[in-house]
């Protein structure tokens, strides 16, 4: 039955009753496609919003919590714009919204913002930040690849389970915009990859278990390794450019430990080959064109980018080689042993352990190992270590992995996004909640199973079910949450810290947060007229990146983890007080009517209002405008100086930097 058929008649009656949540979909039915029309989506969103408000209001009554008053239109608009688009509204936008008398003006704005390309771009940044937080070097490049791809996914409304599937199973060449950036970021540590996947997409902190059994939660090291086994065999590499100035390309594939071992052994042989011609000859006889070509390709990688993305298996060999750099010549025995090993690896059927047969005969295995060059021994050790650690794959709910023609990563993705998975939907919905409200229904958002801080847990489960029933429609869920009365609450008026925090925790008052680095960067550019150039063009893009870097330097990149609501640092203060941006507002962007703040024939208030609308999204209050005009008159500040002073003042207010 199409959801639309169900809902259309009901949409008309929404104000009269609350619809019950539809039951979770049958487990063998595919998720419903997110193919709702805008009207249909809006109707579902309204229904969900009422559901959220009812649940929260009941909780407030039960807890004896008085909600804060609803916020005014201007504050609401600025909050919505920052949360959905990552930037403040323009002056004209704010002015026309405030003048809009239609009762559905807020709904229209919500739909408008969700259809804006900046919605997709901002969502992409938030998710990229979470997904790549534990990555190391190469971070910027990977961000540059993941953000545009995710932005397209969100803008196009691709069901989130599909997006996650792409992230987990990405394979092949990764060029400029690609889901591969996620796995590539962690390709040299599948333990970290596993930890991040579980933390961000399942809300489970299992990475402690990689070293030892978790102290408080129930995850065991064996469970961790068996889950990480789904990622074993992932191999990322840098592909040499064709010609000059081509795009940087990466390759991501599942190689399997056996194939890894073979490739590494071949590289080793080739490298040492020049000092042992007989070994090479023997090798050539065994191999063929394919081997030569592979060795060549591998060579090219090493030459082009010695520092970039070292393939997993060669690290041990390289280290061993550093230590024994003097030993470039192998004995004939050593070379022959290596050749034999390579032969065995090649001869083993795909998917089978090449060493199984050999290991069964312990003396023969020991003898071969003795004869191998040290570097090759290291490679074999690494192979057996990985094989033993990640040999068996098992899902976190205890079910074993059964191949059935699927690769491990595909099976993992299927398991994760299955509506039966108890963790996926709740983790995602909780994260989206936290994006808008500062905290999730359950805290901390990346450790749901051990969490003790839960607000109306049934609500999270209900929303999670709805989310999956909609096919994982992020835009729908966000649209629902911003339609709630809870989202429209003002900041807490209470003075006592404990009472205020309690009000905020129950979503009865909206928290005061500082803009994140992306929001501040884009808002500054908007205010100071720098985003006149299209966001995606090269010059605009580069300028934005530079400003973002400077803002991040002032904020200081917080380590992943609990972020305080309000961040105030001295470098930030210095930037806004003495930086060029705050002191030389772009002359071209200056609203044309602002020239001389007390020129005869035009009320100064209008000019002050324009600046307030531009920077703070609201007109100045009477008292404020009066005081400002008076101060400027007293100081005899005129023209450009007055404009600069007032812009500086507004930029340096707490209100400007606040997302409240």
């Amino acid at each position: 039955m199409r959801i639309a058929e169900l809902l259309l008649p009901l949409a008309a009656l929404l104000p009269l009753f609350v619809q019950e949540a539809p039951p979770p979909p049958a487990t063998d039915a595919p998720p419903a496609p997110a193919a709702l029309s805008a009207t249909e989506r809006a109707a579902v969103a309204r229904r969900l919003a009422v559901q959220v408000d009812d649940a929260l209001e009941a909780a407030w009554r039960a807890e004896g919590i008085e909600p804060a008053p609803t916020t005014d239109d201007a504050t609401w608009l600025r909050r919505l714009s920052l949360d959905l688009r990552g930037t403040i509204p323009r002056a004209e936008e704010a002015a026309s919204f405030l003048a809009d008398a239609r009762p559905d003006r807020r709904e229209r704005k919500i739909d408008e913002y969700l259809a804006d390309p900046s919605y997709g771009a901002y969502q992409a940044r938030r998710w990229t930040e979470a997904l790549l937080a534990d990555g190391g070097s190469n971070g910027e490049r990977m961000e540059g690849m993941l953000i545009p791809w995710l932005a397209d996914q969100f803008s196009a409304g691709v069901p989130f389970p599909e997006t996650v599937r792409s992230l987990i199973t990405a394979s092949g060449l990764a060029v400029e915009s690609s889901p591969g950036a996620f796995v590539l970021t962690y390709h040299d540590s599948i333990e970290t990859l596993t930890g991040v996947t579980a933390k961000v997409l399942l809300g489970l902190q299992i990475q402690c278990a990689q070293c030892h059994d978790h102290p408080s939660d129930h995850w065991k090291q064996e469970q961790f390794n068996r889950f990480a086994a789904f990622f074993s065999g992932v191999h990322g590499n840098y592909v040499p450019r064709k010609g000059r100035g081509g795009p940087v390309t990466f390759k991501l594939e599942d190689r399997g430990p056996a194939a890894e071992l073979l490739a590494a052994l071949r590289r080793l042989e080739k490298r040492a080959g020049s000092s042992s011609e007989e070994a090479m000859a023997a090798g050539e006889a065994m191999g063929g064109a394919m081997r030569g070509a592979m060795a060549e390709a591998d060579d090219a990688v090493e030459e082009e980018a010695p520092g970039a993305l070292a393939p997993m298996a060669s690290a041990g060999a390289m280290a061993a080689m550093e230590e024994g750099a003097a030993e470039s010549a192998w004995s004939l025995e050593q070379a022959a042993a290596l050749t034999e090993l390579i032969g065995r690896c090649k001869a083993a059927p795909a998917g089978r352990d090449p060493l199984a047969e050999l290991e069964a005969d312990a003396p023969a295995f020991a003898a071969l190992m003795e004869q191998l060059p040290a570097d090759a021994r290291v490679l074999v050790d690494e192979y057996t270590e990985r094989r033993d650690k990640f040999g068996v794959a098992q899902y976190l709910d205890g079910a074993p992995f059964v191949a059935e023609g699927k690769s491990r990563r595909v099976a993992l993705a299927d398991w994760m996004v299955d509506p039966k998975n108890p963790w996926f939907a709740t983790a995602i919905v909780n994260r989206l909640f936290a994006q808008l409200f500062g905290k999730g229904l359950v805290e901390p958002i990346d450790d749901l199973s051990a969490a003790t801080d839960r607000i109306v847990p049934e609500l999270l489960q209900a929303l999670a079910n709805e989310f999956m029933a909609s096919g994982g429609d992020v835009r729908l869920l966000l649209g629902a949450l911003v339609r709630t009365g809870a989202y429209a609450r003002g900041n807490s008026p209470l003075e006592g810290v404990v009472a205020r925090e309690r009000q905020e925790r129950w979503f009865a008052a909206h928290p005061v947060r500082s803009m994140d680095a992306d929001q501040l960067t884009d808002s500054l550019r908007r205010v100071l007229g720098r985003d006149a150039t299209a966001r995606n063009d090269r010059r605009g893009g580069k300028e934005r990146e530079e400003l973002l870097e400077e803002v991040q330097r002032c904020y200081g990149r917080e380590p992943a983890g609990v972020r305080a609501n309000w961040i105030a640092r001295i470098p930030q203060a210095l930037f806004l007080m003495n930086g060029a941006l705050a002191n030389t507002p772009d002359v071209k962007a200056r609203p044309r009517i602002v020239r001389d703040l007390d020129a005869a024939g035009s009320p100064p208030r209008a000019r002050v209002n324009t600046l307030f609308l531009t920077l703070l999204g609201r007109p100045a209050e009477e008292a404020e405008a009066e005081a400002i005009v008076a101060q400027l008159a007293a100081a005899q500040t005129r023209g450009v100086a007055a404009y600069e002073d007032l812009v500086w003042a507004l930029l340096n207010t707490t209100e400007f930097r606040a997302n409240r």
Partner: protein
Amino acid sequence: MDRGHGWSDGAVAGRSRLWSRRELLGWAARGGAGALLTPALLSLLAQHGVAAATGRGDGPRKKLILLWLEGGPSQFETFDPKPGTSTGGPFRALPTDVPGWSFCETLPKLAARAERLAVIRTMTSREGTHARARELLHNGFAPNPSVPFPAFGAIVAHEIGDLDHDLPAFVQIDGPPCSSGYLGVASSPFRVDDPTANIGNLPYFEGVDPARLDRREALREVVDARLRRGATREAVEADSAQRKRARRLMDSALRGVFSLEGESDALRDAYGRNKFGQGVLLARRLVEAGVAAVEVVLDGWDSHDHNSSKHRELCAMLDPAFAALLDDLAQRGLLDETLVVCMGEFGRTPGINAREGRDHWPNNFSVALAGGGVKAGTMVGETDELGVAIGKRPVQVADLFATFASLLHIDGTKEFNKERRPATLVDKNGIPLAELLG
């Protein structure tokens, strides 16, 4: 404790020179007065206005320099070598100038100055992930969602620093920012990205003099006043406070302390011409100028692969910088009042993995201390032959922080965060290490 100024039974006569006021005050501040008071001594001290009790008194304020080794340094490749064993790795051990001690060959300069150091080899914790372990070893408490713990640098700034100074009381050089938690904005760290570069945006902007800046601030206050209530009050006040501190710094004659230009080339070379070395030199300048706590971060120790080459590279920065700092502080008479702590969030595994790496190992790791009244030439704890277990004297993180508090005369039992969940500055289960207290 530096024994250079030892008393001989309180007799003032018989020494070839009088103690400097600094020495007297330092001794009094360390609590020496409590042990050896004679009426003559008391009146002498009273003349100089020194309180005879332990605690701050009017003695030179103590300071903290934390050399933070981000990523978890290997104890095998630093202070607890096990050469020639299956776990020891490729390096040899160097005998130090303290009989019976050796360090890894990667730390030759420190080995020659070991008698200035105290080393704990048996630090132990249960936190093996970076984020949690970093918080534990910065704050003295494992992370807890109900309590925003302050980093120890912020505690030092708050308790014994001068929050009314031109310079921020807590400066952090490089590294992920740590937090002042419930202690608030005044003791939050001022972060310096690059010790060799100027502080960004410090000078007044061209065409803006202090008077104009004041006028601008007045305009700003017209708008901010509206938010000085309810939930927004805290944010406005935090911003105000940081702006004031920023302004203070802008106007201060001391702001030149952040520039290394005045230091000799020879000294800059001795610390090492790299970001870390120059950062440690800046730390010395800062504590000399009155900053209470400085943290200098050296990242890269998380050697899951290429462990020995990474440690060789990193120690080649740590060793000269730490050694130069000891020499420099001693020469300027600052060593007794400056506690230097060198540590990371955990150690590294005895087992070397197939990528020639060591993984995380909180079971037993090393911490080195110097100055600040620590009993130099002391080794606390012993690990077994292979370094896989603690032989004697395990040291909990709580004990370590109790020791810091004791050395710096900080009352760790003070309670904060009382409106939400009361917490003491230092874990009350911690027992200061008697071996390290003078």
